[in-house]
């Protein structure tokens, strides 16, 4: 299945998950859908890598999980951000901004010449 979408850069998936969960708690499928929407079919997220990522983040203490009733009435595992998860998101956003800024600067310089 050839796709025009490019795969998500290494390491950004975690940040996106944190970002999505910073708005409201969600279950795995919900996060997958949100990712799908946000990325507007530009970025390709392999759903298979979503769950390992969630468990990794939980293991690090940035997420916590509770079983709660979902919109369909069935129990689902809802993830939400912990305090240290919020901190992590801030610092990742920060470093992301610095990185993109730096990259843009380099590109602009190249354009100026």
């Amino acid at each position, binding site marked *: 299945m050839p796709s025009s979408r490019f795969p998500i850069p290494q390491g950004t998936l975690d940040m996106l998950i944190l970002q999505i969960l910073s708005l409201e708690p969600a279950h795995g*499928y919900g996060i*997958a859908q949100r990712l799908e929407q946000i990325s507007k079919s530009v970025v390709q997220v392999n*759903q*298979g890598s979503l*769950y*390992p990522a969630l*468990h990794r983040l939980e*293991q690090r203490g940035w997420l916590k999980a509770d079983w709660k009733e979902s919109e369909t009435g069935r129990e689902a*595992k809802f993830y939400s951000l912990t305090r240290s998860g919020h901190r992590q998101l801030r610092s990742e956003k920060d470093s992301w901004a610095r990185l993109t800024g730096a990259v843009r600067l380099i590109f602009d310089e190249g354009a100026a010449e």
Partner: protein
Amino acid sequence: MNRIFNWFRQRRLEDDLDRELQYHIDRRMTDLVHSGLPEPEARRRVALELGGTEQLREEVRDIWLNRWFRDFVYDLRFSARSFFRSPSFTATAVLSLALGIGATTALYSLVDQIVLRALPVDHPERLVLIDWIGFQYAETFGTSNLMSYPICQDLQQKKDFFEGVLCRAATTISASTGGEPKLTAAELVSGNYFSVLGVRPALGRLLTTDDDQTPGASPVVVLSYDFWKNQLGSASDIVGRKVLVNKYPMTVVGVAAPAFHGVDVGEVPSLWIPAVMSAQAIPGFTTMLDRRTRWMQILGRLKQNVSLQQAQTGLQPWFKSMLDEDMRRTNVSRASAELRRRFLASTLELTPAPQGHSVLRQGLSRPLWVLFVATAVLLALACLNVAGLFLARGSARHREISTRLALGASRGRIGRQLLADSVLLAFAGGLLGVVMAPIAVRALIALLPHNTAATDLRASVDTHLLVFASLVSLATGFLAGSVPAFQADRKSLDSSLRERGGTSSGGLLLRRGIVTAQIAFTLILVVAAGLFIRTFSGLLAKGPGFDTSSLISFGIKPALTGYSDDEANQLIRRITDEIRTSNSTRASAIARVQLLLGGAWNNSLTIQDRQRFVTDREVQMNAVSPGFFATLGARIVAGRDFNEHDALNVDAPHQSLPVSQTGQRAVIVNEAFVKRYFGGRNPLGARVAMGSAHDAKPDSEIVGVVENISYRNVREQWEQAYFPIGTELSGSNFYVRFRGTPDSAFRSIRAILHNADPTLPISYFRTLDEQIDRSLNTERMLAELSSNFGTLALLLSLVGLYGVMSFVVNQRTREIGIRMAMGATRLSTIWLVLRDALVMIAGGTAIALPCVWALGRLVESQLYDVKPTDPVTILAATLVLCSTALGAALIPAHRASAVNPTEALRFE
């Protein structure tokens, strides 16, 4: 950490993940079907998106627990399952490891507590023991490393080197906190004792230098935490209350910190008393300020930047000038020229003392290290045994391993599996060992000598010990497992798959090597056992030189309950008379110093024979009542025993000897004394004087010669001189030869003592047989433990040898069958197999003998009447080992000779 935790809740995590994924799949399916996809197509899409749920699960599991750990846990589980399938193998391996680890751990516990552990004080590493090396020309009260109180005061001024210098002396007092007085261990200490050590109070205050100024002026005591808790029920109002020390009231000022048990691990004091109160704490002791009375150990705390060497060198000039000054200000100048020379040649020595000072340690550290080395050897043997078992099992599992290798398992992975095997076994063994260790420690502690003071030895498992045991287990596991793992690594894959079951030659050389090493280790242990058994039985056979059966001794200390000398004398006379006239008594006598307790009353003697001379070393002395030798059954070989007229008057305790009515003093010497100082001539009529002073008047006539009997211990034979016991009976040791059973004798004597004074402190009460037992404690411990270790070692290595030989015979069944078909006799077949065993036995012996020779020095000081290289013992041990080893090899050899050629060949 979190991950380890995850291991325990794995089941729940798995369930959670299952539900979570199922939810995802179901929702996605519904959505896809809603959007019009047919159901089978939708299912395919979902699976594709997730990329295989099983793979996904694995990926998540790797997050929970890291890969290596998870695999290792699987390995362990696999190992455990396979162990349960072969219980006899498992039991043998675990038991041998448990024995090795348990014994090593138990011994380590004692070594740690007695030899290694530092005092629970501030910076114990800066504590040093200050000791006088040379001749002190002083009267001695106590055991070892003794100096006088004034020298301690001198040293306290040496502020260039020391932050502080303390002195202490252990003693036994009778303490009463309201009820009956009890004999209690106490420590007489300088006022700065606690501040130098850096100990804090649990309650009230501790002693200070203000408490140590004027003799007799500071009736204060500090209680130990345990004494306060156990004897006084942790009374919170204890500070300010009075304690009667030898009937003398002293005020409790505080309680020491719970962890602090004094500076001697073998003698834990219940209370601390300022040294200035020594006259009250030790009845009759008045020479605290005398420079020629040595009775205290001195410990110093070095200044921060001063090394031990600097301090020792820096102190010598002061010490030399002190010696010169002492020459003038004390009676040293009256000593003979030789003794003066020895006195002036003395030096001051500093040794590190982070563990404080302990007589127990001085006596036991060598035997303990010897035993510790023995257990380490035993553990190595157990390791080798398990390694051998593994190799045997390895060849059985050979095909399994080869198959795994063929299926693509890496060699490292296989090696790890084998390592998991051994680590699991070692930990099982270690666990069992740790469970057994406290029992062993308790038994060991019971073997140690005891007195009034409690020892600080515990049979509990602390973190220290757990760390040691798990380290040992881990090392054991790696050691035992690395051999087979290494072996597995070397095997070539195709050759092993081509081999038929049971014909692999893998590891045989290694197994032979292991058995050879085992035999070497065993021989070392058996030789050691032989030496210690000969030492112990030699001492038992030698005995104390008198008949110990039906002999009881006991000690009383009337002075500790406030008896004056006169009253004490009357009491002792009364008790003596009653015992003498009792039905169950055959004979009885009194001695000033207790026999076979390790201590003696030592002094030089001046002898006036044809010429006047001073004994070249101190003579061991005792004061005894008439009939003492008869009671013990020691023969008077020349002259006569004391009689009632020999001891009537005495001028002063400690120094002088009793004088009879005619102004005559009498002395009895032993045969060793006659041999050394009279060359065997008749000494009767010669005169002696106590001490070596110029003006000593030799006015005691030698009236008798007694055969050699033991004094300090059974081992030692020394020159002895006996004086009639005078009127200075502040405390006495009774010796009673009884009729009938010990029980009835005990009862009647106890009744007599109770009649005389129910509160009389009895310091000990036991038969002489028991006393001998106690005095041979260390020797017995060495003999018993080393022979146990030797037997165990022998068993372990026999099992090893038997295993290898059986294996060899199995392997060579075909060959043997062919040989027999060709006409070999049964005998030659047996020889064929035995030859193999003989090579290993001879090899082991050849390795062991030089080791025995080298290790001999370690045990030499513990032996009696036998050299560490004693040929008889070594020969006997070698014979025992060789014959039993050959016996073990003979069984498989016999089996080999019974091979039926036709069957053996059909086997192929």
